[in-house]
């Protein structure tokens, strides 16, 4: 085709295209971009709907300071059609807003707020409703009730007009919602496929329950089986605050947009008031470096001016972003959540979870939290399970592309007691690793928002948190090994030797010898044995303390207890010395004679009772080498706020001569 011909053809082609462009509706856009929005497979479509609705419910409850009670039902109709119901006890939505919230794509307040929230992770509940409309032709039924004297609830059917992106409302009617204080219920029909397993709705809700221990989640599956993830704590997560953008990592387009929309009259005021951590001094420094006059109107700044400002920001030292815009789960609640949901597997150990101090990436503060669960009925063969979370939302897809998976693979887990081929890759063993990344803006690999982008700052922080938590695991495994060793000795002195003494004395018709000296020679330790007697919400903890050395011993025992779980039994124990406001408790053992023993006991009650692990007990005022069953008191015990304790250089206490191997290699010839 010659170039003349091309020119001749150009006009009509453009016309045809123009007419076609009119016909491209939101439906079509949606259809073409299904994978971006997360509706690319039938099984995923079902999950996406639940995810949107549950995330919204949890966000709304949090905002309104309500302990969430979320109900999810998936009902199989015919073919691939499902009826989905999601109901919450959130603050509800005023009637006027309901059509917009549920019937308009990209409608909402969150897009402009800089704070940690779940809902920024999807296209929104309206997309779910639209997908339902398109795939089944049936409207969604929405009901909501807000708290107040006006106790009328409103219900309406909503269909999204795909041409105009406007809701079409029918059957709008008030009704009395019996027994409901406030809340929202969505019921919609959609095509999909219900699956079980790793990427199932059940798994999503289970993982949601782990990182939201303050929520109660009820799930009724298509077989009409009901699962309830009970609330594990009444403590609400701390509310995150909205913050202004931090100048670090600001992009030029964003800055230009801000200069146009700002209310500020001068550039100087704009810098000081519209950004976080920019003080008058810093603003002056920036302006001085760029040569821009402080009293210019922000809207008059050119693209070059903006570029200069961004350059200057890079050269000026600005405080790290504030962190109250983040709401980490916290180590106690992570443990609580894991215990609550995973206790069916009777794990042997919950490594104290690690919450890292917040850092910033591209002006967005973020923090990383890690928890590890080990042993019990967790399958030992196969790779460990990695539970990935971004802003308290479970990530179930694209594990391979995720920074969390990468960070886990980069750690040499062999050092922390897990198997790993060549010290790389996802480790093997009976463990579950939880990683939560919280940020005002989580960077994902794609619009699907299923994998966290591998930004060096984030991956590195995850790695550090994993290692810290791994150290806790390792120290537990070492402790366990030592304890097994000690238990063997305990059997000797408590059971076998007394039997031997009795037997020999009887045989020789002589008095039974006193074994104290022999026993102290064999053990030569002070032995602390924890015991737990658990009955429902009451745990009785005892520490039996044996002096198997040849001298009198006095020392102090320490443990950190959940303060809200202790009762009077703690204070009435004669060994009790003190408890500080962090729950750190001290007991004194005084003048314990050789061969004597004593017992410390107390009770823990209520929700937090099971958070305490009796193995985490420490001693001071005695050479730790002669103590078995407790670690030396960490140096930072008295310092408030430092939670991570490392005791890497543990000495092996007392000599351990193993019995000379009595192997008889050539015994087979007799």
């Amino acid at each position, binding site marked *: 085709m010659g170039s003349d011909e091309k020119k001749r053809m150009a006009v009509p082609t453009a016309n045809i295209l123009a007419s076609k462009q009119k016909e491209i509706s939101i439906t079509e856009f949606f259809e073409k971009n299904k994978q971006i929005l997360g509706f690319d497979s039938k099984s995923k479509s079902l999950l996406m709907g639940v995810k949107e609705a549950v995330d919204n419910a949890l966000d709304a409850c949090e905002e309104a300071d309500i302990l969430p009670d979320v109900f999810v039902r998936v009902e199989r109709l015919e073919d691939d059609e499902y009826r989905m119901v999601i109901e919450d006890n959130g603050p509800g939505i005023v009637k006027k807003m309901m059509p917009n919230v549920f019937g308009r794509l990209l409608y909402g307040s969150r897009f402009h707020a800089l704070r940690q929230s779940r809902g920024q992770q999807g296209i929104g509940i309206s997309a779910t409703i639209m997908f339902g409309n398109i795939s089944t032709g049936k409207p969604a039924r929405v009901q909501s009730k807000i708290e107040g004297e006006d106790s009328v609830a409103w219900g309406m059917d909503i269909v999204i007009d795909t041409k105009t992106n406007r809701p079409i409302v029918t059957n709008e009617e008030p009704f009395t919602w019996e027994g409901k204080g406030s809340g929202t219920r969505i019921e919609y029909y959609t095509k999909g496929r219900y699956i079980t397993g790793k990427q199932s709705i059940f798994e999503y809700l289970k993982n949601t329950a782990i990182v939201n221990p303050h929520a109660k989640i009820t799930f009724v599956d298509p077989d009409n089986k009901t699962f309830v993830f009970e609330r594990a704590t009444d403590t609400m997560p701390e509310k995150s605050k909205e913050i202004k953008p931090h100048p670090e990592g600001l992009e030029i387009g964003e800055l230009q947009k801000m200069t146009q929309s700002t209310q500020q009259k001068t550039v100087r005021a704009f810098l000081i008031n519209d950004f976080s951590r920019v003080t008058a001094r810093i603003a002056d420094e920036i302006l001085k470096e760029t040569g821009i006059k402080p009293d210019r109107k922000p809207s008059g700044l050119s693209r070059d001016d903006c570029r200069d400002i961004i350059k200057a920001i890079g050269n000026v030292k600005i405080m790290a972003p504030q962190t109250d815009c983040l709401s980490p789960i916290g180590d106690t609640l992570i443990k609580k959540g894991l215990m609550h949901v995973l206790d069916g597997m009777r794990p042997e150990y919950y490594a104290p979870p690690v919450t890292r101090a917040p850092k910033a990436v591209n002006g967005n503060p973020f923090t990383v939290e890690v928890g590890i669960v080990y042993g019990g009925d967790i399958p030992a063969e196969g790779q460990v399970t990695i539970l990935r979370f971004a802003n308290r939302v479970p990530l179930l897809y694209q594990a391979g592309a995720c920074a969390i998976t990468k960070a886990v693979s980069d750690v040499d887990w062999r050092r922390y007691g897990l198997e790993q081929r060549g010290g790389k890759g996802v480790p093997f063993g009976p463990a579950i690793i939880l990683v939560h990344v919280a940020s005002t803006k989580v960077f994902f690999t794609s619009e699907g928002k299923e994998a966290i982008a591998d930004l060096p700052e984030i991956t590195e922080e995850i790695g550090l948190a994993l290692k810290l938590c791994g150290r806790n695991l390792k120290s537990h495994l070492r402790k366990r090994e030592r304890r097994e060793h000690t238990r063997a000795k305990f059997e000797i002195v408590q059971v076998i030797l007394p039997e*031997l003494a009795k037997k*020999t004395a009887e*045989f020789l018709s002589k008095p039974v010898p006193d074994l104290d000296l022999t026993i102290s020679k064999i053990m030569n330790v002070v032995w602390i044995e924890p015991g737990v007697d658990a009955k429902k919400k009451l745990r009785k903890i005892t520490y039996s303390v044996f002096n198997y050395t040849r001298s009198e011993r006095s020392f102090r025992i320490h443990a950190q207890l959940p303060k809200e779980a202790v009762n009077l039994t703690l204070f009435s124990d004669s060994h009790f010395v003190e408890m500080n406001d962090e729950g750190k408790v001290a007991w004194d053992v005084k003048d314990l004679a050789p061969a004597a023993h004593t017992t410390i006991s107390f009770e823990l009650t209520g929700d937090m009772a099971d958070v305490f692990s009796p193995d985490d007990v420490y001693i001071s005022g005695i050479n730790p080498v002669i103590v078995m069953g407790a670690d030396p008191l960490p140096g930072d015990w008295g310092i408030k706020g430092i939670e991570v304790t490392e005791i890497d250089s543990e000495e092996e206490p007392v000599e351990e001569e193993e019995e000379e191997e009595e192997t008889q290699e050539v015994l087979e010839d007799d």
Partner: protein
Amino acid sequence: MTERHDNAVNNLKEIVDSIYNHMRLGEIPTMELSTRSKKNIEFDPKKSVWTYGDMKTQRTAKTVTGATMMLRTACTVQFIEDMIKSNKSSTLREMYYISEGWGHGKFNSQDESNLLAEDLEIMSGCMREDFKLRPEEDGARVMGDFTLTEMTKKGERRKINCLEDVGESGYGVPYNVEKENVQFQGGNAKFIVAVETGGMFDRLVENGFCEEHNALLVHLKGQPARSTRRFIKRLNSEMGMPTVVFTDGDPWSFRIYASIAYGAIKTAHISDYLATPTAQFVGITASDILNYDLPTDSLSDKDIGALNSELSDPRFRDEFWISEIQAMLDMKKKSEQQALAKYGLDFVTDTYLPEKLTNMGIL
């Protein structure tokens, strides 16, 4: 109670006494006994047998194993004393079951009770038989013109000729072959052929090898029981009967020969009582496999491991064995006694044994 039993009880008491005294003095109880491994086997030139050397293993109550062993020792000694007092005996297996009632001293397997019985022999210098403990396994079968007397249950000495007075299965060696029970009188049999397999034993009997060559056949039933070895030893030393050992041609059979001629590692403390140092090995040797072109099987990995282990066993450290073991390793083949049947059922009695025994100067 005989003097032997008296002595045994006293010696065992001393062991218990020592454990008791450690505890009374506030010490950690320990026991010491010879290390029972091939590393600690030495040749005793005076007695021409292999016995334990000076290496000692210490057992201490510091370990669960050690403490448990001591408790078992005390329980076992008590049990033995009770048996001797009440003139009873028991099998090792019975003792294993009786130990159910010994609390933490109970045996977890029969191996443990067998080993402990041997430990007691080593520590007390007595014999298992002195403790009234007898093995489970029955002794060997014997066939040939030889007369002995055995004590009956009624306390009479009954005369038995091992050819005339027995059935096809021969005379059964009892567990106690000491003089008080078995006494030798003699007969036409002039030498002993100890045979590993029942098939070959029956072949030799059927072919009339005993009568034709005045041989006394002893069926070893694989690894020979202690009573079998003691029986051979007594015939050899008291009646001056030369002894040859006729086994399969594989590493395990070499060990059967070694336990008869040199003494077994597990029972090295009583080698001079059980071993027959002058016993000679007839075959099947590695050279037989070549010379007689016998049918063979390939050596398994276990066989090769056993041969290599024999190379580091001091008992096999002589020219004959090193070359035999090496030859077998080189050809990677083993052969059975009954492979001789390749040349007919009479080949072993007409050709193989006469040839070999003549070379050895027995016939």
